[in-house]
């Protein structure tokens, strides 16, 4: 009940919906003010109630517009999906490379007992200059001597040790080859 002994609007509408004979309903039957309020609320409710609408008929243009909209939405949603797919593709490529690498290593290990160590691709030679400078089909101390003279006279020499420099270390390389002793057997 309100302060002026009228039930509030919620109580009135509640008693109408349930059609019970409570205190609010008894009051409503005798109170012209509340009856007017209920009548107003009913009119408002009926006015605001949605009328039965027929199903919309989509025109060709509307279909095209909806298709365009769906396409645009799909385009908006595609970037994150593409990112996920890209990540998946990279992960799959890495996994495939790992599997191939392990396979190659296993293949090399299996071949070694039968064919000896599988030769690796040799690195490019640091130089194509022959170390046999005197042309006697052998590398000895005389070759090192001639290279040392060349370095002294011209200031340049082949990069025999592959360190990117042309200096006395290259002469040392030739000299060390001249006195090299093989690990076992074989001739020099």
């Amino acid at each position, binding site marked *: 009940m309100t302060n002026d002994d009228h039930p509030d609007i919620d109580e009135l509408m509640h008693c109408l919906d349930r059609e019970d004979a409570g205190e609010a309903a008894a009051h409503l039957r005798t109170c012209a003010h509340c009856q007017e309020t209920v009548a107003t609320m009913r009119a408002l409710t009926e006015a605001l109630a949605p009328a039965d609408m027929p199903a919309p008929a989509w025109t060709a243009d509307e279909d095209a517009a909806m298709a365009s909209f769906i396409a645009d939405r799909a385009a908006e949603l595609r970037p994150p999906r593409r990112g996920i797919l890209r990540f998946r593709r990279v992960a799959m490529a890495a996994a495939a490379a790992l599997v191939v690498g392990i396979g190659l290593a296993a293949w090399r290990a299996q071949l070694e007992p039968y064919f000896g160590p599988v030769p690796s691709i040799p690195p490019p030679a640091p130089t194509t200059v022959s170390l046999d400078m005197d042309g006697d089909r052998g590398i000895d101390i005389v070759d090192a001597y001639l290279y040392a003279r060349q370095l002294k006279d011209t200031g340049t020499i082949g990069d025999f040790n592959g360190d990117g420099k042309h200096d006395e270390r290259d002469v040392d390389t030739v*000299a060390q080859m001249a006195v*090299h002793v093989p690990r076992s057997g074989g001739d020099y």
Partner: protein
Amino acid sequence: MRKYRNMLAIMLLLFAVSVHADEPKLATASRFVTCVLVIETGDKPLAAWQVELRYDAATTAIVGLERGGATGYKTDTAPRYDARGLTAGRIKIADFSLADDLPAGSVRVAVLHLELRDGATTLPTVHTIIAATTDGAKFTATATLKEETR
């Protein structure tokens, strides 16, 4: 009683023999000698030389190698060699010089310090020798390795 005493004596004798057999052989005394490597060049200046020595690795080891003090050659470093050759039974020793005052004649090119074991007396022998003069031309030379007497 005497029977057991004899058996005990025989067992002790066998034990002593077996213990002696298990003892490692003591290495016989080594003899250390110093040898000088000399190259005869005649009248040609020696600009580059290389000598291969061969020896019995079972009884001989090269324990030291130094320059011979020839004119025109460096004195602060040893001739060039491969350290593997010190005990491999053969070794190549070589050197060259760009100096103007090169030695000729009997050139003392290197000094070797040898360890001779098991009573060995044989010195390494010269297997090959290469000698070249200032223009790089090789010429015939001889090399000898002699024990240096002090």
